[in-house]
Structures are given as C-alpha cells and as structure tokens.
C-alpha cells in the first residue's frame, strides 16, 4: 500500500501535496488537502470516496479546469504535439448541436487536425465502441449508454497523454453499466492509455483498476492506495472471484468510516 506504483516504469503523472480551498463569504471550505499520488504510464488508477470528498475537484484540477490552491502536479509527455489530458464527463456533456461523428472529432478539430484525418480517427473509435451507422445522429436521439460511448470515443480520439474519467458510467442503469465497463476495459487494453477514473462504486473500481486510491471525507486526501492483484483480462465474471469479494469488503470497511464521517459532517452543517 504505497502511493507510488509498484512497477518501476516512468510515471505518467505525479501530483504532490495538492490542496484546494474554496473561499466562501462566511467561511472557507477545504476540499482537498495534502493529496499526493503518482500514476505510471498505461496504468488504470481509480479514485473512490464518499460523496462530497472532493473527487470531482481533484479531477478538475488535473484537467486544468480549475487551479489548485496549493501543491502541484506534472504530466510527463512523451510527445509534445499530444494533448496533456482529455476528460470523459459524467453525462449530458456531448454538444447537442453536433452529430455523433462531429462530437468525436471535436478535440481534433480544435487542434487543427485536417478533415480527412480526423474523420478517419473518429470512425475508428466509433467502430471500437460499436456505434458504426450512428455517425449522423444527434445526441438526443441516442440512449444514455450510447451517449456515454460517444463521450468515451471523443476523449480517446483526442489521443491524450492521460485520460480522466469523472464517473462516466454513474448515471447509467445497471445492465448498461456492466456492458460498458467491459467495453471500456477492452479499449483501454488495446490503446494502452493511462487512465484516472473517478467512481463511487467499489465494484467498478476493483473490476477496472490496477490500483485504487481511497479518499477520506472532507477535506479530501488519499487515505490508502490498494493494489488490485486480480489477473486480467477481467470480465463481469470476475465479480464472482473470492479475491474480488475479499478486496471489496476490505475497501468497504475502510470506506464506511469515511461515509459515516461525511454524513456526520452534513448533519452538523445542516443544523
């Protein structure tokens, strides 16, 4: 249980002492405190924690959508032309006025990639998520699961150094979520990408990840980092393994305290 990856490879991203304080009119809220971690290249790293623990804040800092109050992080880029990160957002993040194809091309278009090249790239990823033939539909014509497939394709097509995913499957129904978890694992396996994956589902984190960072409730920081030693390839059957369930209960024991603490905090705030 260390905050650095066990394998000796070069880290794709290293964060040191990240902190975030939101300044309010009456009081300041410390959302993140002393958060350090490092993710190696090609690793699938999940972050779980009670709601309100600052998972999304952390993701937005890494995505450079907001600034950290303290600390710093560094992404080691192999290729200067490549974007540092791309986010798979939670839901309703597709541009409603763009077709499926144009949504997937968006990042490439903004970076000035020529039309033919970005069209081919988008086709490629749409095929990978099984959305061939849906290229010309608009997001509102798609189911939630299909929308998230487009969302995932858009980020992969942008070919970033690190993929950031903010509970990408959280709003889907259980069956669709199971199917997409396997698909995401398959694509990750083919593409060999570094992924930081925010989720509130322990099952999901265990199924997908190489390592899982467990966050404390507010102020959020990493309580522990767990290695997931379950062999790959993993499928939905992996959930039935004994070691899966052992890790699940170990994680839950640790998380439960934080969930309780977070509920206490809310109760105190509402009084």
């Amino acid at each position, binding site marked *: 249980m260390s905050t650095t990856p066990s394998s000796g490879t070069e880290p794709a991203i290293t964060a040191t002492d990240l902190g975030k304080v939101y300044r309010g009119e009456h009081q300041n809220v410390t959302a993140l405190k002393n958060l350090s971690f490092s993710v190696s290249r090609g690793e699938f790293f999940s972050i779980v924690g009670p*709601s309100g623990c600052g998972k999304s804040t952390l993701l*937005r800092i890494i*995505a450079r*959508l907001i600034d950290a109050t303290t600390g710093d992080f560094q992404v080691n880029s192999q290729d200067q032309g490549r*974007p540092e*990160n*791309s*986010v798979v*957002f*939670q839901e*309703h*993040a597709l*541009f*409603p*006025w*763009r*077709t499926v194809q144009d949504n997937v091309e*968006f*990042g490439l*278009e*903004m*970076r000035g990639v020529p039309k033919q090249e970005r069209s081919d790239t988008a086709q490629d990823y749409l095929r990978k998520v099984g959305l061939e033939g849906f290229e010309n539909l*608009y*997001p*509102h014509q798609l189911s*939630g699961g299909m929308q998230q497939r487009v969302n995932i394709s*858009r980020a992969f097509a*942008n070919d970033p150094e690190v993929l950031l995913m903010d509970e990408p499957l959280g*709003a*889907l*129904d*259980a*069956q669709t979520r199971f199917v997409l978890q396997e698909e995401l694992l398959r694509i990750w396996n083919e593409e060999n990408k570094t992924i930081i994956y925010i989720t*509130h*589902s*322990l*099952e999901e984190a265990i199924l997908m990840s190489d390592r899982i960072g467990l966050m404390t409730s507010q102020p959020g920081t990493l309580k522990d980092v767990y290695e997931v030693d379950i062999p790959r390839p993993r499928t939905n059957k992996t959930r039935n393994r004994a070691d899966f369930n052992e890790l699940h209960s170990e994680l*839950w024991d640790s*998380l439960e305290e934080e*969930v309780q603490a977070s*509920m206490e905090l809310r109760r105190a705030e509402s009084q």
Partner: protein
Amino acid sequence: MSIEHDSEDEQLDAGVDTRESSVFSRLPVGEERLISILSPIVFVLLWEATVQIGLLPEAWFPAPSSIFVTLVELLRDGTLIENTTITLRRLLGAFLLAAIPGIVLGLIMGLNATFRAIMDPLVSMLYPIPKIALLPLIIIIFGFGDRSIIVTASITSFFIILLNTMAGVLEIDDVLLEAADNFHAKGFQKFYKVVLPGAMPLIFTGLRLGLGLALIVTIAAEFIASESGLGYFILNSWQILRVENMFAGFIVIGVVGSLLTIGVEKLGDYLMPWRETDTIR
C-alpha cells in the same frame, strides 16, 4: 446511503409514456386531430347562423359569408395588398433594427460580466415600460410616418430579443463549456462552435416573440402615426363605418402573424436540426 446504485432499471422504456393517470385527460391522436379541425368550422357555421337568424347584430358582427365577399373584393382591387405590403415593410425594418443590435448586445451581455453589470439596471428599468407609450415622444423626434412606427416597434422587439439572447448564453450547460475548454476550444472558435449554437434555441425564442410584438406595435402605431398600412386601414374602416372591411383587416393580420411565426419556426428547424422536436415552444 448506498454506494452502488442499481435502481435505475425503470428508465429503460423512458421513450414510451406508459402512465395511465394524469391530471389532464388525453385523447387518441386521430380523435384529437378531428376535433381540432372541426371546432373552427363549427364556430364559423354557428356565427353565420346566429347572424342570419338575427341573434347577432350585423352592424357589429357581419356574417362570415359577407366578410369573405369583402375580403375577396379588397384583395382584387389591390387595397389590402397595398396596405399589407406597407405594413410588412415597416415590420421588417423594425424587426431588423431590433434583432441585429438585440442579438449582438445580448451576446456581449451574456459573455461579459462587466458589460452585463452595466446594462442590467438600465434594461430592467426600461424593459417594463410599454413602448407604445413612447410613441408621442417618438413622433416629436421622427415626425409622422414610417420612421416613428419603425422605431417604436423596434424598441419593443429589441428588449425581448436582447434578454432572450443573454439568457441563451448564460444558460449553456457548464459541462459543455468545460468540455470546450478541455478540448482546447479558444477565442472565436469557442464562440462560433460552442457559445453561439448553445445560445441559438433561446435566440430564436427571442426572435419569434420579438416579431410578434413588433407586429402588434406596428399596427397600433399605424392607428396614430400614419395614413397607410393595415392599422390605418382598420381605423379608417371604423371611421367610414365599413365593419366588413375591418374584419377583412383582422383576417389579414391574423394570417400575416401566423405565417411569420411559422416562418421563424421553420427557419429555426432548418438551422437547428439537432433540436428535440417535441419541445413546447
């Protein structure tokens, strides 16, 4: 609190409305369409009948049949066409004069907090004034005729377009703006490819409402500030006591108003094929 939430299975059939009970009653589609075609026909027939048997005074409510005859006559001799053209020209002038600055300033207000802070109090002060009340002042400035009518109608229309455009920008979902930033949309590209399409639905709502208001105010201003146009034609019909002419004028205004509204909506559908079609507009 449950950590895994698995309770969203019921959304699978979200597209189909399977609910039986509701506060309002529903009709089968065919039945509803039939009723909505029949109701105006029955209304006109009833009107005709009540005038024919003398229940409605013909001096105020001429029979639909005689209104129709008058309408055809006035269309044939060019009176209605001429006045309609004049009104439409004024309306178009007023609409353009409202829409262009309304959209431009509305976009700036949406994008720039300082400009919004400056404009907000002015707009909230001026917006509630019924602009037709300004007509006498505007006549003093611009004189009797086209210019006063156009200015009055355009001021009315301007505010609703301005406010809807601003709201259109402000109501773009944050996550879309985050996505735009994350995928490195910058400057004009971000404006043109994210902000503008994002604000478009409300801009069009503003245009549709603005056009309707401009028509009302144009007609009203023509009562006073003009000796031509549909407004003048209706007022003049009253002065010479030709009630059928008045009704013919009402019909033309109704048709013009509906056609313009449908036109703006069709233009919106053409420019925004991505909109969900079953939204209430």
